[in-house]
């Protein structure tokens, strides 16, 4: 699992690359804490190269989303594949995120 962060004024684009299963969710916990600081702006989670997500990964999405709601920011999920879209649908995440 790899995270690539591109910062622009008022906007952070995070490229999620690989599988976001339980071990890798634990791995990136620190990066997520860093990312929470940007929650007052726009956080774009680019999922073009995300192949798999488990509940631990979903939790991270939800954590960021909740933080943004408090800080007055926004979380945009971009380019999810059909398999992950299914998961989002199942879990009601489609209603919680702005999907592009």
């Amino acid at each position, binding site marked *: 699992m790899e995270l690539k962060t591109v910062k622009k004024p008022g906007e952070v684009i995070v490229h999620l690359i690989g599988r976001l299963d339980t071990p890798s969710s634990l791995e990136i916990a620190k990066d997520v804490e860093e990312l929470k600081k940007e929650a007052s702006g726009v956080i774009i989670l680019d999922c073009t190269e995300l192949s798999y997500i488990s509940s*631990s990964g*979903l939790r991270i999405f939800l954590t960021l989303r909740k933080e943004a709601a408090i800080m007055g920011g926004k979380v945009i999920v971009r380019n999810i594949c059909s*398999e992950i879209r299914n998961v989002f649908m*199942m879990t009601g995440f489609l209603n919680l995120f702005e999907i592009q």
Partner: protein
Amino acid sequence: MIKVKKFSDVVRNSLRGGLLLIIVATLVLEATSLVQYYFSREGLREEAALRAESQLDNIHDKIMDVVDQAEAAVRNSVWIASWCLDVPDSLKRVCYRVVDDNPVVAGSAIALVPKKGEKLFCPYVYRSPDGLVYHSLDNEEYYYPSKEWFTMPIEIGEGYWSEPYWDEGGGEMLMTTYSVPIKDKNDNLAAVLTADVSLDWMTEIVGSLQVYPTAFSMVFSRDGTIMVCSDKSLFEKKNISGIVSQMEDTKTLSFIGKEVTEGRSGSKVVKDKGKKFYVHYAPVQKTRWSIAIVIPEDEIFGDIRQVGFYVLLMQIIGLLMLAIILYFIVSNLLKYRKLTEMKEKMEGELKIASGIQMSMVPKTFPPFPERHDLDMSALIVPAKEVGGDLYDFFIREEKLYFCIGDVSGKGIPASLVMAVTRSMFRAVASREASPGIIVSRMNKGMSDMNESNMFVTFFLGVLDLSNGHLRFCNAGHNAPMILTDAIRELKVEPNLPLGVLPDFFFTEQDVTLEYDDALFLYTDGLTEAENINHEQFGEQRTKDILHGRKTADEHLKNIRGAVDAFVGEAPQSDDLTMLFIHYLGKSDSNSSRHLILQNDTSQISKLAGFVESVCESKQLSPDLSMSLNLAIEEAVTNVILYAYPEGTKGYVDIEAQSEEDSLIFVISDSGKAFDPTSIPPADVTASLEDRKIGGLGIFLVRNIMDEVSYERIGGKNVLKLKKSL
């Protein structure tokens, strides 16, 4: 090398120390001896001086005894002689009396002072063997008025002891004469009365009193003539000057001569012909004679010299022995040092050999990480640096070729045979597929060149991974254990060990392994491992440990740990080798597959491969694969995170059963009882503010799978997940 250097220092130091010891010992011994010798010598010298003094006194007293007797004899007759002067014939009788009454007097004469115109008159009586003999000395030939014994007393007017002389007149012996002047009534000198004393008695006295066997005494007259000498050769020199002319140390002797003739006493050391002599001398009263005693130094110090010689000899022997002992000690140390160096060199080489040997057997586990149909591990623990045990395995054409062996003996010879055996296994098994043929060929090869009569017990198996068919051939090795629903010994033909008979026919056997069956191969170093009480580890302990579901690696680690704990302080007597093969293959449609994970989240990455291969065998769509993957991961994560108390080790067993129209995953663990189905599902319709962070996992499991059921069976949590296809 640093150790060796230090050691050689020790050797050098001990050599130095030893030399120093000998030197110090020598110095101390010699110093002690010298001091002792010096004091002993002084003591002996003093004693010799004392003895000489007392000898001088003794001789002196004896001489004086005679002298006094002779003088008394003369004195007592003076008055009668004086009275008889008028009747010359009666003087003869006086002479008779003097001789007859005094045994020390050898002869006596009364010589009248010749008057003008008168005839000489001198009656003389002397002792002969036939009695007293009278003789007149009035002949002109002898002419007594010119004799010393006559003239000297008249001259000095008192008694006079003559110089010794050879009496030709009658006694025919060495004599000295005491003569006294006699006065007539008118107080005029009228005659001289004499008493002859033979010097023979003095010779007797001097000869009988000897302080040391080779010491000798002499008596000198006042002009240095030797009167008596117990040394005959010196006596012939007649007087002191005769002796002086004969000797080397003339200076000292002349000095002594002067002292003697002047009537002094003293002592001197005289050297002659490399020898030292102690000379003590003292005058005799009245006569002005002198006595001298000569003691050769050898005589005084002879004993101490002999003792000194023996002491020195013993010291030399002792020191030599000390040196010899030291030499042996040091040479032993040097030998030991050489041995140590050799040993260190050999140990270094053995270490390298050990590395080479260990690199011959596969050491990376799991050896085939890409294969899900095989979990295996192996372990070799040599008793010494190098050992005679071996195992090896490789996969060729979907068949696992594996072997285990134990070379007779231990150490380097066994290790060489081990290397040969392993090479042969690789060479033959890379072309042949039949275990019987492989073992027979190896046996032929090893018997042909087996001059040292080494043999190898060997077990070789060929496992067809596609169907679990195992063909094997045993060559005298102990039977492996087979783990199915129970643990038992695999029934094997014993055959013969490799290297015994070149043309022996090895029987091949076979057995079919089912999914989840396992083989445990080992050498007798395991079951025969002994503790300090000489109890053996045995098969039962091994079987007890092999119970329960664990990875191959875990099984071997557990056994190793148990053996170490059992053996304790006892030395490892034999090489220990184990090979564990867990067969997880045969993925036909009706079979099930297993995956065992530890309770560690990092293990979850293994799960994806397992689930995917199951899905692949059912040719499921990627979408469904991912969903199943997700569901299984959520269920397993749940167990890993919550089933076992934190910090304790546990396992999760995932079994995938493939039915015709469904896939069933059974996830079981031995943790605390926990029913995940009892967790209320997350509310996915809740607004953002109400959404809970947790609870998603079990929701996903339920959503993806068609049936989810939980049971607690025999202390295990068993979660069954079914997906209809």
